[in-house]
């Protein structure tokens, strides 16, 4: 068996003992109904509680439940755990837990050479093999000889284990995933307490199900122990992370919490107007659970309604958000433009998924960047930010709110499916140290005894925010071009140019109010790898590997895509080569070329799968060597 970079040579049949690994990548695969997301999450949480660093990558079909046993219905969950600071869920699983032939056939190609495969042997029957597309049983035909196989009759053993629990019928086999989890817990010496506690909480009202799952979990562990399933078990020590209190958080949850935190940092009530869409819906779900924070969530009739109510709430003084994914962003375009013209603070979250059109709704992609930047009629510049990891989704949301309020502008925040549904450990901030991002309402006249809605702050060019209910400041805004200062409708040609210039300047000037790009690596290296969004982890991982070889590469990652940080031009000009890996056909590269006339090189992948660290590493090596 081979996990991590080490190779184990100990002969079989000896009493297993523990070997220490620095990291391991495990992928759970099975039918959508097999509970693999749950098994993976529990394994992850146990590892988190144990103190490992980790990163996860769940992947599931667009269908609610595709036909059982088919490749189309396979759901998977990959987690990397490590004793050091890792950044990605890893490229190639060391261990594949396959609950059925379809899961095996569709995932085997990713498993590292000589990796371990854990299978539910009872699923490898004629019908399932056929559905998955196997002609022969791979457990028997020798095709898996180069892997270490741990094979268990999980159904029989689960049935046996849960006999006393009280569950019957279909529910019996539902516990199968906990058997697999128990077996993995044994193999990796995971603590059982976190899982047990979670089960006790979750099924406090269904003691039968609780008992069944506990029994299956135990049975899995025992199966490992008693059958000597592997010659050795493994430990991955706790990581030496920054001191602090950690939680394991997905990007969608972090974004929802970020919205709540932004409301507190701005001392404003939070409003979220939206329409469900994969993979953004969980932000709505999470926010709607926290009404006791004063959060208002409004599930509208469609995306246009969703942003419409959010614009209304922004006008009325709320810290207002709308969230969606690609097709929904398309529908919101016209209303975003209204928010821009009326200069109201509004945060538009776009969780990118595979496009165009309905595309691949459950797959990650970074192909909405140019749409976010240019996706409005007329000259309509707007700030665009992007989260770089699940926990950064929290920070970037607060940053977006800061900009929206300070500059009185709509702001787009990009996330993507892998950030939204993936997770990582997050060193929890002390919320009492959140920045003050408040924008006080206008309470009285701002020019003699008059209120002029489009009078601007001389520094930021932001207009003031006078909300309905404030005596004396009654005013009207709208989508027609506004006269400077008064905000009245104006068809005057000179005024139009002035307002176009003003709006452009207001946004461009934000470049001076955001952190400069930081370079990781030698500022004099030959190659700069520039990234944005969810590729953060893979790029950093790849660059670190190359740096370890002593080769001249540096990296920088953008969280502000419009405007760019003020020092970006200088940076991209100071390297001989700039490589921009993106899960699109070269959108940031396009912007960098247009803005700085730098012949940046693209590395592009739009295949519904994130980059592997190795892919980027190889590309870097090629470029350094050429």
């Amino acid at each position, binding site marked *: 068996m081979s996990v991590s970079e080490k190779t184990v040579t100990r002969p079989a049949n000896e009493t297993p003992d523990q070997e220490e690994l620095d990291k391991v990548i495990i992928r759970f695969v099975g039918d959508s109904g097999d509970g693999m997301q749950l098994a993976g999450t529990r394994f992850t949480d146990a590892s988190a509680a144990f103190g490992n660093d980790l990163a996860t990558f769940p992947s599931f079909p667009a269908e609610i439940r595709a036909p059982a046993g088919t490749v189309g219905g396979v759901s998977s969950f990959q987690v990397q755990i490590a004793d050091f600071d890792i950044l990605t869920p890893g490229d190639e699983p060391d261990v594949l837990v396959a609950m059925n032939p379809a899961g095996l056939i569709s995932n085997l190609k990713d498993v590292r050479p000589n990796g371990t495969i854990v299978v539910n042997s009872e699923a490898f029957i004629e019908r399932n093999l056929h559905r998955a597309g196997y002609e022969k049983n791979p457990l028997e035909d020798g095709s898996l000889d180069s892997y270490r196989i741990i094979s268990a009759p999980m159904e029989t053993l689960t049935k046996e284990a849960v006999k006393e629990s009280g569950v019957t019928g279909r529910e019996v086999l539902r516990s199968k995933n906990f058997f697999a989890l128990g077996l993995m817990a044994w193999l990796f010496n995971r603590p059982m307490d976190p899982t047990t506690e979670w089960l006790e909480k979750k099924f406090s009202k269904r003691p039968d199900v609780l008992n069944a799952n506990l029994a299956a979990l135990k049975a899995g562990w025992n199966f490992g122990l008693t059958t000597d399933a592997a010659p050795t078990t493994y430990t991955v020590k706790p*990581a030496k992370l920054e001191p602090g209190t950690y939680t394991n958080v997905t990007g969608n949850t972090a974004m929802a919490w970020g919205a709540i935190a932004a409301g507190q940092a701005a001392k404003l009530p939070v409003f979220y107007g939206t329409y469900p869409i994969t993979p953004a819906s969980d932000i709505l779900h999470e926010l709607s659970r926290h009404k006791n*924070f004063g959060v208002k969530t409004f599930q509208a009739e469609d995306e246009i309604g969703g942003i419409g109510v959010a*614009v209304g709430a922004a006008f009325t003084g709320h810290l207002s958000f709308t969230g969606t994914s690609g097709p929904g962003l398309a529908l919101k375009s*016209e*209303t975003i433009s209204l928010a821009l013209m009326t200069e109201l603070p509004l945060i538009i979250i776009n969780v990118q998924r595979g496009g165009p059109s309905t595309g691949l709704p459950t797959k990650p992609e970074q192909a909405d960047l140019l749409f976010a930047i240019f996706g409005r009629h007329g000259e309509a510049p707007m700030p665009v930010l992007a989260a770089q990891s699940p926990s950064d989704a929290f920070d970037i949301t607060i940053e977006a709110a800061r900009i929206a309020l300070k500059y009185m502008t709509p702001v787009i925040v990009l996330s993507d499916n892998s950030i939204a549904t993936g997770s990582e450990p997050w060193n929890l901030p002390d919320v009492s140290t959140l920045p003050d991002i408040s924008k006080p309402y206008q309470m009285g006249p701002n020019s003699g005894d008059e209120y002029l809605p489009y009078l601007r702050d001389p520094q930021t060019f932001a207009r003031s925010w006078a909300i*309905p209910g404030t005596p004396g400041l*009654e005013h*009207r805004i709208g989508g027609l071009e506004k006269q400077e200062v008064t905000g009245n409708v104006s068809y005057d040609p000179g005024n139009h140019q002035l307002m176009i210039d003003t709006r452009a300047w207001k946004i461009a000037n934000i470049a001076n109010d955001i952190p400069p790009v930081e370079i990781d690596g030698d500022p004099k290296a030959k190659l700069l790898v520039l990234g944005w969004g969810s590729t953060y982890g893979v790029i950093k991982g790849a660059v670190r590997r190359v740096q370890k070889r002593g080769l001249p590469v540096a990296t920088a990652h953008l969280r502000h895509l419009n405007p760019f940080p003020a020092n970006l031009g200088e940076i991209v000009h100071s390297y001989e080569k700039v490589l921009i890996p993106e899960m699109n056909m070269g959108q940031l590269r396009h912007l960098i070329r247009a803005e700085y006339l730098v012949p940046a090189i693209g590395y592009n992948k739009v295949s519904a799968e994130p980059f592997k660290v190795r892919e980027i590493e190889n590309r870097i090596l090629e470029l350094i060597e050429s």
Partner: protein
Amino acid sequence: MTTLNYKRADFQSDQEVKWCPGCGDYTILASVQAYMAEMGVAREDVVFVSGIGCSSRFPYYMNTYGMHSIHGRAPAIASGVVTANPDLSVWVVTGDGDALSIGGNHLIHALRRNVNLKILLFNNQIYGLTKGQYSPTSEVGKTTKSTPLGSIDHPFNPVSLALGADASFVARTIDMDRKHTMEILRRAHEHEGTALIEIYQNCNVFNDKAFLALTGKDERVHNQIRMEDGEPIIFGPEGEKAVVIESGVARIVDTASVDPSDIHVHDSREVNPSMAFALSRISSHPDGPTPIGIFRDINRPVYDQEMARQIEAVTEKRGPGDLQTLIGSQGTWTVE
């Protein structure tokens, strides 16, 4: 609240009113401004939201808070306003194209949710601002710029549509009748929840005299069917016509030909909307006898209030949210 002592002029903004001379919008503006002075709500608590169209210029002329938004989206935006602050008095001004064509979906959803909005639908049966295309309320066969051979689209009956969407308040009035308009505005304001008021509005440039049957000196007594709560529905110069409802269908009969007790007595407070619906079918086009007044005015939970109540209840139960606790709520571990 201090006593409000408004005059109509207090609701006039400093912007020059820019409709065509003779447009029915002027009269409606006057009625609304006059009513606002009486309404008893502080000016700063009043918000007008509109879409796009001639009618949607309305907020610019009201010295209140306002937004001239984008085509069709006013009901959504206004829903956001009042959900954010249920204490405001929020009014939507919209046209037959704005409300029923591009904005149809937001309209029916606002009605169903019963958000506390007062929606003034200026129905001139034409697209005014874009210079005269037919609208979803234009009659079949209408010749317009976009239908030189006559329209083949069957029009909506806006009152029926609203009732089909479970509207809690639906009324109809006429631009020229300022007194009636103001009375309906008053009832709409008193109503909690969404109120839809269809206002027949003359566009003298692109669809002049569309409502002549109801506004013409000679014609109107024959065609205006006034509905008053508790009163039998009788109309005509001498009350010679009456409305009866037989096996679900409302019909116009000669008053003399029926037993007075069979004449339908209007009741806008009836919870079941079927009666109101039946009345709405008396006329699907205002070229003959047409009911004017309040079709329906019932109470049911109001969306924005329910939202506030839900927040209050859960906050009471769980206490105000604590952010530090929240971000630690999914289980934590500590690294030292």
